[in-house]
């Protein structure tokens, strides 16, 4: 039964968190932390100079209060979509003072080595760069995120790697609490209560996610039902006929600069769907606030929960709750500085 499953899911998440919290401060040393490849980082002590090539991981570092250890960032941090948030938190980024030796695609090994980092945070798929760095004797933490559990692992590992175990514990505790609250409010939801939700990626109207996937978890946790959930692929392109068969009641668009919910509602085929007719096409408003690769996914879940179950999760004071989220995650001081985008 579906509602049991997602309640179980949240409980399981909470359990994982509790275990992680319980074990870590006592047994894990920085050198023993294993990254997503399963390899130990072999850091003798907490990192002092880190090159962070993943923007979402960088967010995590700010949340942990370890940003002063960052000596270089990825190129997209300076791009329009996210720059202003980081600029508000850090004058070095505002002034574009931090070097940008790479991103998800290209990596300049020489620049990184010249910075003499003791740790590089990089996507696990960049195997060639990783090998080159390891060869030069640089410690690497490789990231691969497929689920919210993975996000928790990342935060927990960073906590140990940067000597911020306590703060990591706070963050994960907060997340566990939020998820538990969500789970509770979802008890008693039957399949019929869950609206069919179609999630649309920005690359194309027909691009969605099946299961298992982060999107699927997102929708389930928020009290909806992924109409593409029976497709066994994380990212796929579907035939428009499917959408007509599924008749989703809610459509959630990932932030899309080329198409707005209003436009979508007037397009042929889409306009006949219940979601269009009842005005339940929504767009996740921000790549920064809704980043599924950080703890900010909690914000995305809340938004989606409101859209799926407007009675159970009425629209709260959004700027107030945003501010609260920011201060909880980024700390009181940084959280105050980040612009709200209203």
């Amino acid at each position, binding site marked *: 039964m579906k509602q049991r499953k997602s309640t179980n899911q949240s409980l399981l998440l909470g359990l994982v968190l509790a275990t992680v919290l319980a074990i870590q401060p006592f047994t894990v040393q920085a050198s023993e932390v294993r990254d997503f490849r399963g390899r130990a980082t072999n850091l003798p002590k907490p990192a002092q100079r880190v090159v962070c090539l993943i923007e979402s991981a960088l967010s995590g570092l700010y949340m942990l209060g370890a940003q002063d250890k960052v000596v270089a960032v990825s190129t997209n941090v300076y791009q329009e979509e996210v720059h202003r948030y980081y600029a508000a938190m850090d004058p070095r980024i505002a002034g574009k003072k931090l070097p940008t030796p790479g991103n998800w695609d*290209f990596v300049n090994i020489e620049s990184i080595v010249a910075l003499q980092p003791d740790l590089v945070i990089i996507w696990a798929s960049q195997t060639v760069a990783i090998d080159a760095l390891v060869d030069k004797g640089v410690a690497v933490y490789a990231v691969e995120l497929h689920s919210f559990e993975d996000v928790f692992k990342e935060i927990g590992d960073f906590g140990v790697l940067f000597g911020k175990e306590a703060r990591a514990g706070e963050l994960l505790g907060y997340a566990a609490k939020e998820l538990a609250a969500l789970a509770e409010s979802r008890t008693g939801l039957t399949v019929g209560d869950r609206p069919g939700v179609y999630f649309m990626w920005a690359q194309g109207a027909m691009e969605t996610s099946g299961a298992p996937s982060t999107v699927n978890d997102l929708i389930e946790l928020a009290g909806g039902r992924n109409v593409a959930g029976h497709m066994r692929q994380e990212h796929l392109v579907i035939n428009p006929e499917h959408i*007509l068969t599924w008749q989703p009641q809610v459509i959630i668009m990932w932030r899309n600069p080329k198409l707005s919910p209003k436009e979508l509602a007037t397009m042929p085929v889409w306009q*006949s769907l219940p979601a269009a007719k009842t005005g339940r096409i929504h767009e996740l408003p921000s790549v920064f606030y809704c980043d599924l690769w950080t703890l900010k996914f909690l914000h995305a879940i809340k938004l989606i929960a409101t859209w799926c179950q407007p009675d159970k999760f009425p629209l709260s004071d959004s700027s107030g709750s945003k501010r609260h989220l920011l201060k909880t995650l980024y700390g009181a001081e940084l959280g105050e500085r980040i612009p709200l985008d209203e």
Partner: protein
Amino acid sequence: MTNKVKIALLLLLPIPVLLGSLFIGPSVAVAPGRVIAWLAMRLGLTPADGSPAATMVQLVIEDVRGPRVLLAFLVGGSLSIAGVALQAMFRNPLVSSYILGLQSGTAFGAALALCTAWLPVQLSAFVFGLLAVFTSFFLARKDGKISSVTLILSGIVVTGIFTALLTIVQVLTDPFKLQAVVHWTMGNLHTASWAKLRTTWWLMAMGIGGLFFFRWRMNVLALGDDETRAVGLNPERQKAWLLLFSTLAASAAVSVAGVIGMVGLVIPHMVRMLIGADNKMAVPVCFTFGGAFLVLVDNISRTVVTFEIPIGIFTTLIGGPFFILLLKKAKIGWELE
């Protein structure tokens, strides 16, 4: 079966294929019986049924399958007819618009548009496709004369340039946009819509119409430049017209459906094997047969898996081995220049 009968059948082929393809699709809910009911309603034989089920069937057929099948037909026909014209023009049956850089130009145009927010993809692809071919053309021109060899050589150069530019765009963009570029390049008809048809059908029609007029002159050209001049036609001018029309049709087709390989190359061969090399008949048959062919291949791609696989994969997997077979057979008696 006489040739005349074969030709007639091939020209009429689209009708059953297009109609039949409306029955094909992944939705179980749109059963053949319902399609027939829809047809009856459309023909005025039965009154409209306002039930949600019938409305959905109507939507699927009229807004999803209909434009897709039509678009597949037009695209397949355009690519095939452009292929047969280019083969006559180059006196080489192994030629297609690939060789003039059309596909790499359109791919670059599309990639550029996909990676910038403000450029419309179709328009950009179309324009750069034209640009690539005309660059090849003007590079090869010398004193008003164009030899096939220099045209092919400039085509290779232009292809290389646009491929390099495409690579630059790919390197500088994020993985999501990159994925979109790759998807586009592999050919896709799943985003077919009446809007897309409206923007391109007239361009394809212009190209197809022009080539239809020039079809007999392709016979003349195919015998050689001197032979063409001897009977009173200026070969350079004929080639220029053929190039213009075939590029219009092919670029419009690729800009709306992505790069679909093998069609422009293989269909003319199949048609020549079936009805002979006379372009007077081969040209219209290439259009109808090539169009029907792509519709049938798209039917396969629509039903074999539940998610969308780019159609270019199917045409290459089916067309490639077939082409090798053709090369081995070589019974048709053509020789390479």
